[in-house]
Every structure is written in C-alpha cells, then in structure tokens.
C-alpha cells in the first residue's frame, strides 16, 4: 500500500515536472508549480517528515505560485520562443541530471543505519534533545537551537531577497504623483461574495498562523510556516479589498521596518548570549536554568523568523501589486479615449485566480 502510494506520488511528480518544462502557457506552468508543491508535500508526509511537508505546503503550494502569478501579471503570460536558448537549457538540464543520477549510486541506501547522516550528529540530537532543550518536537530544537546559526543565515537570506525586490521595484511605486485611478476592472473585482468570505476567513487564517508560530515547539510548525500563512492572510486582504486598504492596516514603511526587526531580534538574542559569556546563539545563558533559557531563546528567535518572513512576503506582494496598479492605470489612461471598457481584463482574471490560490 505504502509502495503504491509512493509510486503514484512520484509518477505524478514526474509528470508535473515534465509538463512544467513543456508547457508554453506560463500561467498554467505557475498553477502546475503549485500542484508540484502540494505533491511534494504529500510525498514528504509519507516519508514522515511532517515539518518539511508543512513548509512545502505553505511555501511551495501556497505563496510561491502566488508570487509567480504576480510576476506573470507584470511581464506577460506567454514565453517568447527561443530555439537556441531552449537547446542550451535542455543540454544543461540533461548534463546536470545525468551527474546527479550517477551520484545517487554513491549514496547510502534509503534507511541505511550506517549512513553518514545517521551516525554523525543525529544520534546526539535524538537522544539528548529532551534533556538539553526540553521540547517535544526535535525538528524545532535542531532548527532553532542546535543549528540556530544556519537558521539565522536562512532568515538573512530571506531578508536580503526582500531587500533585492525592494531596490528593484521601489522607485516607481514610491512616487505618489499619479492620482489613483480606480479602473472599471478594479471596481468590478470587488465582488460581494469574495469580500464576505474573505472577511470571514482572514481572522481564522491569522489565528492559525499564530497557533503554528507558538505551537512549533510541540507539533509541526514554526516561524517560517507561520510567517508565510500570516502573509497569505494579509495578501488575501489586499487582493479583495485593495492595496490601499491593506496599506492602511500595515503601511509600507511599517512592513519594511518589521522585516529588519525580525532579523535584529534573532541576532540580538545571539549577542545577548554572547554578552553572558556563552557561545553565539547559546540560549542557555538567557535564564538561570539552562532548559528554561533554551525555551525562551527558541520562542524569541522563532518570533523573529516569523516576523521577518511575514513582512518580507507582504512587502514583496505590496511592491508587485503597486507595480501592477501603476501599469493598469497607465493602460486605462492610454485607452480611455478609444476603448472605454474592459481592456485590461487579463490582469483581473489573474487577480481572481490568485485569490483562489490563496484560499
């Protein structure tokens, strides 16, 4: 039964991956990418990696198709055919794929007890985690405490990505000069059903994000997943009620400040343990009792991770939506004289399907 499930999931993964590469319509490719994320989440689930599956479901199936779709709304739905580049890419993919497949022969068998991953530091984590860190979810204790420095690096990477998007897209969206034109499409997309359902759903989504954030020590979850879920709730709000309404709740500046604050919280926790004479990010220095210190440290740094991830995602969505709106306003003013209605319909459909993806 397990084998059948594995085969089915892997076959579907393969089919999805090939069709992503094959398909010309990038919109469909984005949707397929979401499906790919969901399938991999299912696959990780059957392998027993619940935390990874959760992250994959939130990131791979949730927010990354959303961001890809926002990008597509800006730069068009169809790929420009380029034979040479396609050949080059195929050759590259085949070479790398062949290398990877040949490398798998050197890998230990699946579940091999003597595999390096199982004899190096993993036994220590598994056996000592409860007495040293004192939380039931070993994954969280490894991520947040034993490998805290790596996680710090990941958070900095996300922050840097946010900075990159900010520096690329900030200029045009920062100028408040153009009067906000409510295009016909934008007004029509404010649909009553969507608004009511979004209003009903946003509060539970946020609550669930907080649950995932603070339950990460006991069950699957943690700052990354919680941040993404929180951001999805927020993006849903900004899509249904408009960018301005979302910006009234959390202004652009606030989101920027928060994205840095999360990294600062993480780093300062490390510095604090530095100051009390222990190693960087050794949380046992934070309280008299070393286990209590670990608890406090993990909660604080997970909070930092959650804040950074959520605000970077919200910031990216703000920037993209701002660009999109500028584009739509330009289109509307350009075509106002000739075709009064319904010209930029494509982007509305994208917005709607985005909404659907978030739900």
């Amino acid at each position, binding site marked *: 039964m397990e084998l059948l499930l594995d085969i089915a999931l892997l076959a579907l993964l393969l089919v999805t991956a090939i069709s992503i590469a094959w398909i010309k319509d990038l919109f469909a490719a984005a*949707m397929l990418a979401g499906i790919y994320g969901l399938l991999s989440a299912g696959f990780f689930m059957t392998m027993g990696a619940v935390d990874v599956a959760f992250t994959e479901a939130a990131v791979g199936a949730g927010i990354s198709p959303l961001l890809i779709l926002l990008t597509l709304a800006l730069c068009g739905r169809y790929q420009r055919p380029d034979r040479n580049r396609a050949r080059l890419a195929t050759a590259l993919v085949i070479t790398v794929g062949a290398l990877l497949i040949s490398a798998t022969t050197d890998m230990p068998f699946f579940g091999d007890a003597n595999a390096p991953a199982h004899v190096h530091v993993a036994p220590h984590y598994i056996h000592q985690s409860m007495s040293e860190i004192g939380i039931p979810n070993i994954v969280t204790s490894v991520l947040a405490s034993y490998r805290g420095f790596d996680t710090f690096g990941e958070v900095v990477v996300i922050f840097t990505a946010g900075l990159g998007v900010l520096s690329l897209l900030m200029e045009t969206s920062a100028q408040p000069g153009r009067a906000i034109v409510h295009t016909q499409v934008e007004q029509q997309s404010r*649909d009553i*059903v*969507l608004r009511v359902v979004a209003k009903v759903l946003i509060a539970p989504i946020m609550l669930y994000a907080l649950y995932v954030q603070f339950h990460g020590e006991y069950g699957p979850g943690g700052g990354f997943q919680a941040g993404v879920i929180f951001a999805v709730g927020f993006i849903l709000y900004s899509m249904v009620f408009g960018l301005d309404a979302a910006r009234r709740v959390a202004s652009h500046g606030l989101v920027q400040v928060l994205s840095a604050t999360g990294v600062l919280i993480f780093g300062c926790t490390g510095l604090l343990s530095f100051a009390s004479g222990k190693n960087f990010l050794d949380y046992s220095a934070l309280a008299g009792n070393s286990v209590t210190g670990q608890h406090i440290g993990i909660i604080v740094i997970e909070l930092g991770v959650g804040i950074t991830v959520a605000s970077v995602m919200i910031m990216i969505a703000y920037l993209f939506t701002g660009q999109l709106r500028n584009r739509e306003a330009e289109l509307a003013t350009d075509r106002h004289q000739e075709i009064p209605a319904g010209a930029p319909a494509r982007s509305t459909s994208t917005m709607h*399907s985005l909404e659907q993806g978030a*739900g």
Partner: protein
Amino acid sequence: MIDSILHYTSGLLLLLGCFFMLTGAVGLLRFPNFYARMHAAGITDTLATLLVISGLMLTAGWSLALFKLALIMLFIFFTSPTASHALARSAQLSTLKLTYVPAERTQEKDQQAQSRMGSKPGSDIEVETTDGSSV
C-alpha cells in the same frame, strides 16, 4: 455493533466521495466548454471533499483529530464554492464571456437541438466557444 456500523458507514462515505471526485475529474476532461467544466469540478469537489472528510470523522472517533477535521471541513465549505465563484466571475469579466444571443438568431439551432435531444429548448444563453483549455 456500533463500531461495525460506524466502520461500514465511513467506508461507504469514503467510497461515495471517491466516486464523486472521479466523476468530477471525468467531467473536467470531457465537458465541452469552460463553464461546464468548472461546474463539474466545483460541485463535485465540494461534495466529494465533504463526504471524504465525514467518512474520516466517523473513523476518528471522539478525539482532537475529529475537531481538526471539522475545522478543515468548515474551511473547505467556505473556500471551495468561493473559488468556483471567483473563477466563473473572472471568466465572465475576461474574454471568456457567456454571451446573450437574441432568441431569433438561435431559434433554428434550438430547434435542431430539440429534434436531436428530444428535449425542450433550454435558455437562450449560448456559450461562446473560446477555449479555456488551460483551466
């Protein structure tokens, strides 16, 4: 006694759910235009998910899993129809409109359809056959 009843009911619900999911998939592949496909997908999706989750709830018994499944069911009960609605609405706002064709023009077609299918003419709504194959 109760256990076996629960067992068989949940099995029946799961089977029904799988059946409806399958019919939805067949409809998605076979129906002629976007709106019909969406209809097949949307309705069977909601119904089948509800059936599958209720079947799982029966096997879960009184536990935390039951509560979580109930929450998931509630969530899907809200989101799935809304997603279908948003999809149809955005199609309506884009180039994939359901167009209102005046009755005189479609009369002949209706009569043909009537003679072919042996049923009374439906509405005077005709779906523009712009292909939405990507959905």
